[in-house]
């Protein structure tokens, strides 16, 4: 069967190449359907409970998608004519932002004051002509003392101000909407930077984050893929020393990648932070197959075989291993379907399909390609590998030290795993090299810009928010919140009620308290609402029947575990103190906060499944339960070592890392397969364990360290990504792959020498 198929390929190489071309063109044409998606929602399934809560809250109140423009004078304060004029002008210009429904800054803050018997509600800075020393002093006083402004739109020290643009995207073509909105803000920033060179502007907010997700993914695609390509070419040149062999490899890799991307396009998958690295990963994984095939062929050519015989020899030798290693890798990646994160499932599916396509092309197209190309024998002279031989001798000599020693080292690293904690903060997904992260980090020093949580407290009845006991409850809650160390700012309607009460009583500070009767509170609020201009109404704080209010809490930069703990803490406080009112919490930070834990849990549950599937595949391929069982420890150990090292090195596990255990399992298992297969072969030939270990080292040792080098370098390229999701994943996977080689060279043979001591004739 194998013979007939190979005969067919070598008899009609051009037919094979032509049909490959046709197939590749068909599949690859789907690439035109691909697009980059910039939206933090790509991380979440449609039925994600925190996402649903967030969207319900956005439906009840107004949306909170925003762009925040930070304004920081290089030196000096905000409170002078020039900077205040700038803020006023920029605030006015910001209303032109596409899809904007609201713009907030210190200049259009609706300042209320008692004016004899009237209530004066007016922009804090209505007209820049007003700006004399007295007005500037007033603005400074109001801005720095108004609790709804400080830490939100003005830094406590007055060194930084912000304009918050709330947008409501129609979500018909969300990518374009995010792009248009962000580009407008960027243009605004450029215009004002030109006019005010002494002032620095920083963009952040949900829209900036969404834009950065797409933009940085595109950046990754533009930089990482070419870098990886160059790395591959260099590696091929070093390994094959044959330009045509390298060309054949590059062709196989390229068609595997374009076909995969095309199929993804046809399947409606989009490019994202996760899937953008599929080409890089595929290049890494596919190159090994090709190198094995070509190296074997060169070996046969070198000993004087005809080209046809050399290809046959190579395919005979490699068909099984190439298929098995591809299948185990694909299984590892397919388990990502159990992830809670849709784009990680996309990554898994695309890579799995790509690996199998690469396998197909390596065993069908590659032989045909090699046959028609005028390839000559490689310049590598096959010699007895002294290094591998020495390594084999070392392991055999030191097996009594190596076995317990390695076991100890493995256990030692594994014990460090507990140092890891799950942490998913959206802003920390971005490398500190990215503009978005730099802006956020800068703004966070002055304002609480990155982590709001919204609480909705429902009184249970229409107009309930006007009841003094309700206002007192949210006022108490607000004060409790401010006492929490992680809280930077609280925006609550109770402060507005207190301020109005004071205003309505001629500005008497004694009345800065919650109104004592419901009709009083209701009428003050009505009066205030009637005084507010377009876009600055209370719809973002009160629902339509005034039964519930939204309290926005800005948090200092804390990890995802702390943010979910804070949510729980606050909701418990409310349930204990105000059981009559129902409360809920939602925000993007919370959605990210919860996804990490849940995703980790589901990935840990699927790990045994992947292990069982892959081990069964090994048992099947080696036709030996015994070998399958022996392979378990060396297959699990690398990930345990890797995560142990990670616990010591970083200790923060994000979404990108949660999948590393499953995906690396499918890759590292290859080493074990190759080593055990050769070992088993030698044993069946009647050699004892020692001879069989030496045989395995001599036959696959070199190939193993070469593929490990290729994989480690390939995954290390991911470390250049602008996303920590990808760079961390690349780094840890590289560590695990390297650990696998060490385990397979030092532990596995020692294990076999110690326990596989049965006489060879009984060998099963």
């Amino acid at each position, binding site marked *: 069967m194998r013979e007939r198929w190979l005969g067919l390929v070598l008899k009609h190489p051009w037919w094979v190449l032509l049909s490959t071309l046709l197939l590749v063109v068909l599949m690859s044409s789907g690439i035109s359907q691909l697009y980059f998606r910039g939206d933090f929602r790509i991380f979440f399934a449609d039925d994600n409970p925190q996402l649903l809560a967030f969207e319900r809250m956005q*439906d009840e109140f107004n949306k909170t998608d925003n762009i925040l423009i930070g304004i920081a004078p290089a030196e000096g304060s905000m409170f002078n004519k020039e900077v205040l004029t700038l803020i006023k002008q920029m605030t006015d210009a910001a*209303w032109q932002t596409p899809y904007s429904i609201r713009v907030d800054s210190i200049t259009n803050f609706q300042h209320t004051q008692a004016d004899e018997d009237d209530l004066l509600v007016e922009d804090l800075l209505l007209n820049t002509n007003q700006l004399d020393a007295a007005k500037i002093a007033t603005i400074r006083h109001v801005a720095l003392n108004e609790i709804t402004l400080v830490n939100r739109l003005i830094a406590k020290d007055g060194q930084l101000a912000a304009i918050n643009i709330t947008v409501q995207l129609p979500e018909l073509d969300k990518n374009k909407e995010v792009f248009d909105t962000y580009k407008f803000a960027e243009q605004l920033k450029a215009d004002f930077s030109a006019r005010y060179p002494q002032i620095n502007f920083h963009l952040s907010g949900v829209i900036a984050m969404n834009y950065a997700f797409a933009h940085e993914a595109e950046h990754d695609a533009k930089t990482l893929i070419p870098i990886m390509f160059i790395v591959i070419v260099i590696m091929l040149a070093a390994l094959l020393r044959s330009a045509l062999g390298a060309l054949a490899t590059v062709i196989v890799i390229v068609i595997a990648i374009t076909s995969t991307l095309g199929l993804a396009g046809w399947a409606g998958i989009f490019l994202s932070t996760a899937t953008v690295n599929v080409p890089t990963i595929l290049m890494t994984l596919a190159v090994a197959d090709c190198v094995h095939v070509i190296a074997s062929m060169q070996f046969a050519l070198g000993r004087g075989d005809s080209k046809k015989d050399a290809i046959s020899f190579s395919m005979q030798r490699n068909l099984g291993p190439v298929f098995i290693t591809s299948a185990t890798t694909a299984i590892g990646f397919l388990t990502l379907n159990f992830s809670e994160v849709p784009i990680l499932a996309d990554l898994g599916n695309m890579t799995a399909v790509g690996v199998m396509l690469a396998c197909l092309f390596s065993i069908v197209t590659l032989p045909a390609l090699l046959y028609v190309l005028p390839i000559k024998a490689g310049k590598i002279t096959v010699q007895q590998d002294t290094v591998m031989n020495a390594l084999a001798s070392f392991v055999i000599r030191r097996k009594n030290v190596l076995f317990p020693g390695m076991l100890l080292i493995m256990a030692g690293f594994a014990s460090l795993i507990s140092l890891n904690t799950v942490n998913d903060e959206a802003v920390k997904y971005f490398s500190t090299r990215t503009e978005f992260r730099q802006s956020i980090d800068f703004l966070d020093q002055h304002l609480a810009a990155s982590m709001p949580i919204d609480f909705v407290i429902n009184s249970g009845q229409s*107009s309930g928010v006007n009841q003094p006991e309700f206002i007192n409850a949210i006022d108490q809650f607000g004060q409790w919140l401010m006492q929490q160390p992680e809280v930077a700012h609280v925006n609550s309607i109770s402060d507005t009620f207190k301020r109005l009460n004071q205003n309505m009583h001629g500005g008497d500070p004694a009345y800065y308290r919650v109104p004592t009767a419901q009709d009083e*509170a209701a009428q003050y609020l009505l009066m205030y609402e009637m005084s507010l*201009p*377009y876009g600055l109404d209370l*719809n973002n704080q009160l629902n339509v029947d005034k039964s519930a209010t939204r309290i926005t809490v800005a948090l200092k930069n804390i990890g995802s575990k702390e943010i979910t703990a804070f949510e729980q803490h606050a909701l418990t406080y409310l349930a204990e103190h105000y059981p009559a009112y129902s409360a809920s919490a939602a925000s993007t930070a919370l959605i990210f906060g919860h996804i990490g834990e849940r995703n980790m849990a589901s990935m840990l549950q699927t790990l045994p499944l992947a292990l069982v599937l892959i081990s069964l595949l090994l048992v099947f391929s080696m036709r030996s339960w015994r070998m399958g069982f022996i392979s378990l420890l060396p297959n699990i150990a690398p990930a345990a070592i890797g995560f142990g090292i990670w616990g010591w090195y970083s200790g923060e596990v994000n979404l990108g890392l949660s999948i590393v255990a499953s995906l690396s399992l499918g890759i590292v298992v290859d080493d074990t397969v190759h080593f055990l297969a050769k070992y088993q072969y030698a044993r069946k030939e009647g050699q004892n364990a020692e001879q069989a270990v030496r045989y395995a080292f001599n036959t696959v040792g070199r190939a193993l360290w070469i593929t490990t080098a290729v994989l480690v370098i390939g995954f290390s390229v991911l470390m250049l990504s602008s996303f920590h999701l990808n760079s961390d994943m690349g780094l840890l996977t590289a560590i695990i792959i390297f650990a696998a080689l060490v385990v397979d060279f030092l532990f596995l043979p020692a294990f076999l020498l110690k326990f596989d001591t049965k006489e060879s004739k009984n060998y099963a």
Partner: protein
Amino acid sequence: MRNAIITPLVLLSLALSLLTPLASADDGKGLAIAKERKSRDAGWGDSESLTTMVLRNAAGAESKREMRTAALEMPDDGDKGLTIFDEPRDVRGTAFLNHSHPSSEDDQWLYLPALKRVKRIASRNKSGPFMGSEFAYEDLSSFEIAKFHFNYLRDEACGDSTCLVIEQTPADEYSGYSKSVVWLNQQYYQPEKIEFYDKKHSLLKTLTLQDYQLYLDKYWRPHKLRMVNHQTAKSTDLIIHKISFNTGRTAADFDTNALQRAR
């Protein structure tokens, strides 16, 4: 990136070069139609009505407001209006008095029964929402020629008859709109639909006016007004239950002293 800057500029210059001659050419017709609309509605004197306002959020949850309104036509000035709130209960008895002026800011007062005081409201708020609804004050105040520049656009079929489509540009810089487009029924010169555009020239809201009834053989009044906000997906219905004319109200019923007595 480059397109993002150039495209708006090109569009803007195109729009300017196209619109300027058109605008001046049809200025006269638009104004004439507006004058006809105003004159056809002149002479109604005074009226009273009962109104329910239904507010809806994006998820469809509803909330009701009940109010009574009275209006007085002022031949040489903007109309006067008085609104007394009945529901929600905690604002019952709160009364809102509005003196609109064709070419200056409206005067507005609010009587708060909890304080037993009349408070004046700053009037640059005309763009703000009325009672948390999708209606702004300026949507509800009386139609005055001096408040807009008019531009006739086209005739268009609407329902069974034909509408004159007029573009209205507010004269006041504190308006919340860049413009509105009015579909004026050609038979009775009353609006059937109005589209409001925000200051960034995006469609913000659409008002549809339905159930027109004829009063005093001359004056058409709608009984159901629905305002839909396209940007937030919120909407407000204004349902007018009963309108009566010749109620005997005089200017004295519309001053700040009367406000305290309003019930």
